[in-house]
């Protein structure tokens, strides 16, 4: 029974070409560890330098998006000895890396607040439809711009993913309840 259940889960991932899967609370050390294993696997696969760097770059941005923006989180007040504001927080997401023919795919999913769906969808649609040249120009513009409200990074992560991808990025949203939707993003390299 136990073996069947777990094997079933493994088979589902396998049938979708998945070679790495992480579902759970993501922290920076998780990114480091899975990242090292990913580099090792790509080296064993004999992936060329450009592919290796691109898959890794997309992986880092996807992981950091979950760490920073997933709407599903737990936190603990820091002990008094730690500086104020050092809230211990972990956010939940799922990330898979797989093969599709000769390509690699890096997929990430996490909850987002319903009120953020429109803005995110609009932004992704814009990025998806840009030519490499226009994407480059927008990236440069964003590099110079002040970070958007609610953005903890440079606001460049999604553009970095699109620039590194060899096919247009794919994204989708599924309604979960009144407050949350599930957001999925796929990049092919």
């Amino acid at each position: 029974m136990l073996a069947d259940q777990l094997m079933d889960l493994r088979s589902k991932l396998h049938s979708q070409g998945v070679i790495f899967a992480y579902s759970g609370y993501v922290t920076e050390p998780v990114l480091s560890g899975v990242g090292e294993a990913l580099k090792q696997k790509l080296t064993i696969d004999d992936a060329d330098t450009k592919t290796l760097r691109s898959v890794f770059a997309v992986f880092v941005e996807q992981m950091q998006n979950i760490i920073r923006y997933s709407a599903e989180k737990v936190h603990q007040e820091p002990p008094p000895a730690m500086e104020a504001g050092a809230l211990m927080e972990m956010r939940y997401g799922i990330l898979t890396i797989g093969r599709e023919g000769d390509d690699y795919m890096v997929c990430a999913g996490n909850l987002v607040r319903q009120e953020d769906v429109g803005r995110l969808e609009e932004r992704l649609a814009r990025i998806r439809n840009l030519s490499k040249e226009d994407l480059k120009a927008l990236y440069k513009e964003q590099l110079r711009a002040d970070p958007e409200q609610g953005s903890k990074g440079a606001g460049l992560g999604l553009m970095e993913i699109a620039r590194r991808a060899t096919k247009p990025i794919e994204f989708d949203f599924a309604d979960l309840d009144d407050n949350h939707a599930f957001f999925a993003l796929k990049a092919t390299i």
Partner: protein
Amino acid sequence: MRDTLNIEQTSRTPAVVFDFDNNHLKISGESYPEDVTEFYRPVFNALDTYLGALGEGPCRFDFELIYLNSSSAKAVMMLMDKLEDAAKNGASVDVYWFYDKEDDTMQELGEEFGEDLENAKFHLEKMAD
């Protein structure tokens, strides 16, 4: 004897070697720190102090980065801005961007940073094998 700044490379942060006595500053390796602000704060501070006292002196800055994430790109842009400002104020600044010839994304990124330098001299070069 001026201060030097020496930060050892880790798997997620680059080596920083600022040899202020020889006016040769270098940052090399990979950059995707857990906390970009915290990592680059001492780098910015040391560079500000050095450039503030440089006057019309010479300075060479080497970027030899294999990979940087999007938040580090912002930090690199801020380094470039500081170097450009010093050049604007009369310093003789040479910025070298070394890229891996197998990775044209890093070459393009270098070109993009280089486009914004007007007073500092920009050199785009392949890394030695």
